[in-house]
């Protein structure tokens, strides 16, 4: 197993242009599932391709297992990668695809077939060995790509949006499978995705990227609960965090932390866990004029404007469980509140987290 480090890693595709990846310093941990999460164009795939050796960095260093690998070809880095398209070899059978990496490293034939069967067995596809990729479904292709990646028992897995070509239902089950699979193998894994649900569900840690740099790295809970800047705050969470300008700061709170005061008594009385209990404190009362409501089955999303006070006519979103039965007709104004502990403060100039300021 190995850890990956990048030092000041930068990639500029066209001279004079903004770098696709800018001065990234990242360090994975032993056996960790590290997710690179970001919108398209954030440089996450370029970063992954540089680690794989498919893209040459403009400057900076990449270390795998403590060794600088900048000048090594992909083959010398001894890593495995699963591509978004799976990139199976169309003219080879599944067996041919899985044994290809072993053939390339000169493993004897009998050994190759034994290992291919082992890898196929782990992924539940031994019955597909003699089919061609075009005869397989999307889910089966993804398993073949994974089997091809593990058969060499690499020290590092790189996965580039491997679930994005699957349909929604399959994706959810493949997500769980993939995560359990990684835990079982214990191989350090770097996983690129733009899907925050995948990132939160699978990652030991999540590195949130935007415009070529890593904005924050931490456990899913850390990046969600304590976002380092306004980008992370709005990119994670759906609907995104409410951000309200207030003098020199931006005040942010999650839609699920914004609730009608009628709801308050019950929640405060029975704190769900210790952290919730710690948060119990003074409330910031806010008047909320309802714009429209989305009913999503398990939850309800209210869109509207704040009314009066420091945040007059700023838009806000409330997300609450649909077990909360009150009705909120459009245009009506209700007393809402946020716990003071749930407020996050960001610098208005830079967007980064800053210390709490009094609201009034």
């Amino acid at each position, binding site marked *: 197993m190995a850890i990956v480090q990048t030092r000041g890693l930068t990639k500029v595709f066209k001279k004079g242009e903004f770098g696709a990846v800018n001065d990234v310093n990242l360090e994975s941990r032993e056996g960790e599932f590290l997710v690179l999460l970001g919108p398209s164009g954030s440089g996450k795939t370029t970063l992954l391709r540089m680690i*794989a*050796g*498919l893209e040459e960095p403009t400057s900076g260093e990449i270390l795998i297992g403590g060794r600088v690998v900048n000048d090594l*070809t*992909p*083959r010398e880095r*001894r*890593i*495995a*990668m699963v*591509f*978004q*398209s799976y*990139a199976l*070899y*169309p*003219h080879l059978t599944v067996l041919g695809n899985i044994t*290809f*990496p072993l053939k*390339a*490293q000169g493993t004897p034939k009998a050994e190759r077939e034994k290992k291919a069967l082992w890898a196929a067995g782990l992924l539940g596809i031994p019955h597909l060995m003699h089919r061609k990729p*075009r005869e397989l479904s999307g889910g089966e292709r993804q398993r073949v790509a994974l089997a*091809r990646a593990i058969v*060499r028992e690499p020290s590092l897995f790189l996965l580039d949006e491997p679930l994005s070509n699957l349909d929604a239902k399959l994706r959810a089950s493949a997500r769980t499978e993939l995560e359990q699979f990684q835990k079982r193998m214990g191989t350090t894994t770097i996983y690129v995705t733009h899907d925050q649900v995948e990132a939160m569900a699978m990652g030991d840690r999540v590195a949130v990227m935007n415009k070529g740099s890593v904005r924050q790295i931490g456990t899913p809970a850390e990046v969600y609960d304590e976002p380092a800047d306004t980008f992370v705050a709005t990119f994670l969470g759906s609907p995104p965090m409410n951000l309200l300008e207030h003098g020199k700061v931006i005040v942010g709170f999650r839609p699920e932390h914004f609730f009608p005061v009628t709801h308050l008594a019950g929640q405060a009385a029975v704190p769900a866990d210790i952290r919730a209990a710690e948060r119990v404190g003074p409330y910031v009362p806010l008047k909320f004029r309802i714009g429209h409501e989305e009913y999503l089955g398990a939850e309800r999303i209210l869109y509207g404007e704040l009314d009066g006070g420091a945040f007059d006519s700023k838009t806000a979103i409330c997300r609450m469980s649909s077990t909360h039965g009150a009705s909120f007709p459009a245009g009506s104004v209700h007393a809402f509140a946020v716990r003071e502990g749930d407020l996050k403060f960001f610098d208005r100039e830079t967007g980064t987290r800053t210390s709490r300021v009094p609201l009034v």
Partner: protein
Amino acid sequence: MSAMGRQRWLGPAMFLPAVLYVVALVGVPFVLAFLYSVGDVKVGSVGYHFVGLHNFKSVLQSPTFLRSLRNSFTFTIASQVLVLIGANILALALKNPFPGRRFVRFLILLPWVAPVSIGSIGWKWILDSLYSVINWVLIRMHLVNEFSPPMYLGEPKLAMASVILVHAWHMLPFSTVILLAGWTAIPKDIPEAAAVDGAGFFRRLFQIQLPMMLPIINVAVLFGVIFTFTDMTVVYILTRGGPYDTTQVLPSLAFFTGILGSDLAEGAAISLFLVPVLALVAWLMLRSAHRAEVT
């Protein structure tokens, strides 16, 4: 006429010119060639007498014909092998962008778009026994004897090699364009995946990319075979089949016998020997086209 009625006639009406064209310019001459080959027609003769397989018999007994038949295969196979290797290398080199790529692509297409006669006449001078620039350079570099330099079109082996090389030069752009399309159609991910899987350049080339290219290489080769097997331009301009028929190929022999030698019947018989080879190639082409559709 109702709209339905018009519809019924529109298709065949649009199709008719193509059918007429093929029947008049391919079908009629083909039937005529067949009739000539079993008759006694000469240029200027008025009657027609059926002579059965007499022409084929006499053709098969002629050493010139057998030599031409052999030459045709040598000419076609050797030039196609050269074209295939050259076109793959060129396509690989032109696949990735570099400054001036468009200009280089244009230069490479030039031999194909320029009339073959002009190109071949240029080569005739380059290979000339007295004025050859190649010999001029070789003599100045003291690589060949000044008083007996190689006569590229005058010595049997050299003449065959020259004809093959010039034809390969002429065919190269066409195959390059076809193969370039094939190379660009391979998703970038696949050779990249192979690289990460530990395959070096040659393993990627021979075990991944070329096998994926096979259907397109088939098309390029089959077209090349047809264009080469039926072609006589390069031979006609450079050597007229000489020296001593050592570069004579079936199409040029048919032309010399049937048109210049006035023996239409025997010329027709010679050219009909092209049919089985071309039929086989056409069948292979249709089959590979069908396969390409299915997958």
